[in-house]
């Protein structure tokens, strides 16, 4: 594999392989940013991977009070799934259990898309007949009386079929501390890119996987080629200087958002340098045959 070097960091000439997904977004507001984020964090909990969680979700960006529909601080949450039905199911369940229940919350459409998904249209029945429909400015809202006032919720939000899931890169470092430091830099930089989320804990994955496994029924198992403790005993992808690898996984509302996020993340890691952070950067793919979207690292470097 050909190697490039940027700021002393080796960049593998490889690519991240990503897939087409369905995505939606909502804006959650509350009396304070803390409580808007709390509703969002609760709603996006247990949403790291479609394989086990049904969807992938995270906070996209915080939105200042001056830019939200109701003039209160808020944040934009993005949710990704493989099918429209699953996305609607996850959205309804998470909205009903996590946002409706959160103190002072309100919820608005966060995406103009080719199709629409129900928000308040499915939750309004909680109002038991006391729900109020309001249509103005070309939008439709539901007001549902609750114990701290009213849950204000837009009737529908948009859905896009242009979304991309699985953009990624791997950070290979001398030890776990340095890998984490580099990954945190990348997460902070990608967090500022609108339209892209990192669904894993704090944006970082430590258990990258390969397809299949030796046990029956395992769709994925540990990526032994990148496990440093197995360096001597398996066909390892790691050199003698690498003792920890972390992965950043990115979902974006379109190809451009993933590209921008990859670019921002790579720049942050490269600017951080090899002494405190990553010695080498790579990316995960399946040989290029499964995913429609390929992100070549060499095209995205600063």
């Amino acid at each position: 594999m050909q190697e490039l070097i940027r700021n002393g960091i080796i960049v593998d000439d490889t690519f991240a392989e990503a897939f087409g997904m369905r995505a939606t977004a909502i804006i959650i507001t509350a009396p304070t940013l803390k409580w808007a984020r709390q509703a969002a964090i609760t709603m996006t909990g247990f949403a790291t991977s479609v394989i086990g969680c049904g969807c992938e979700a995270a906070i996209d960006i915080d939105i200042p009070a001056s830019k939200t529909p109701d003039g209160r601080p808020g944040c934009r949450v993005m949710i990704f799934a493989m099918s429209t039905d699953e996305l609607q199911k996850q959205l309804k369940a998470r909205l009903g259990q996590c946002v409706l229940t959160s103190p002072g919350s309100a919820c608005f459409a966060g995406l103009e898309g080719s199709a629409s998904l129900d928000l308040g249209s499915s939750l309004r029945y909680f109002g038991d007949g006391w729900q109020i429909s309001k249509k103005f400015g070309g939008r439709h809202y539901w007001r549902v009386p609750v114990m701290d006032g009213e849950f204000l919720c837009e009737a529908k939000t948009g859905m896009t079929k242009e979304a991309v899931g699985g953009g990624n890169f791997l950070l290979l470092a001398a030890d776990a501390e340095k890998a984490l430091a580099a990954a945190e830099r990348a997460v902070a930089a990608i967090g500022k890119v609108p339209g892209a989320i990192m669904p894993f804990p704090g944006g970082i994955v430590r258990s990258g996987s390969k397809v299949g496994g030796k046990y029956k029924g395992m769709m994925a198992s540990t990526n032994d080629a990148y496990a440093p403790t197995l360096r001597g005993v398996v066909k390892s992808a790691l050199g003698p200087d690498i003792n920890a690898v972390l992965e950043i996984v990115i979902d974006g509302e379109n190809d451009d958002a993933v590209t921008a996020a990859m670019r921002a993340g790579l720049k942050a890691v490269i600017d951080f340098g090899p002494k405190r952070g990553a010695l080498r950067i790579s990316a995960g793919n399946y040989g290029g045959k499964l995913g429609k979207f390929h992100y070549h690292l060499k095209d995205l470097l600063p």
Partner: protein
Amino acid sequence: MKPLTFMLRSEPEERLDLSGLTPDKLAGMPVAEIAGLKIGLSRRPATVGDVFKITGTDASNIVFAGGSGRFDLVGAEMGTGRIRVEGDVGARPGRRMAGGTLVIEGKAGLQAGSGMKNGRIEINGDAGEGIGGPMAGEIHGMTGGLIIVRGKAGHRPGERMRRGIIALLKGCGDYAGLGMIAGTIVATGRVGRYPGHLMKRGSLLFDRRPADLSLTFMDCGRVDIAFPALFDRYLMEEKILDRPLLGAKPYRFGGDNAVLGKGEIMFPKG
């Protein structure tokens, strides 16, 4: 293209039915044909050419240069485009209107926006009774759209309306939202007696406590909800008001409990 302009020659001698002079109905019609349309309501009805001098060609943008209280049904059933009246109009402007914009720079007569379905009516002067209401025998009034009255409004605005917004910027007469089914009425200034009488659902949003409120409206206290800020912002973005109407924690009354009782009256100050 210059707007299709109907210049009033002199005060008409009879009431006029102007429902034929809308962007939809005049699209592609030659001027000679327009001039021959009968608009008078007497036994020997006047034609457009008798009453107006016609200039301009853009039928999607119609201007009446000069108005009269005898101009009935201006913009009735219009679906697209724009009509501006530089003066007063008579009864039922925007009757069953389905889209587009109707601007009346003077006063309007009875039942402006009666049975309106969509679109926007702006009346800069006063407006008569029954704004957005039903005509006799109809089961509901307006079902969508926006009516803004910048002058004073008469009795019974929004009677039996189902959807849409009516904004009355210098108050209105008695029985605002009489028998309202749903929708929103905004009023700044003095509102008359018994607003919301027999309303089932819907919102009456005022800038002050109404003087005479039916006993069948129940005090819900001051409510800390997100809706007022959202709606205030809409009113300002649409340039209906230049400052918030309700603000934080408005007073809310629920009613009318003589009927379904799912409507509300909200206002900011005690």
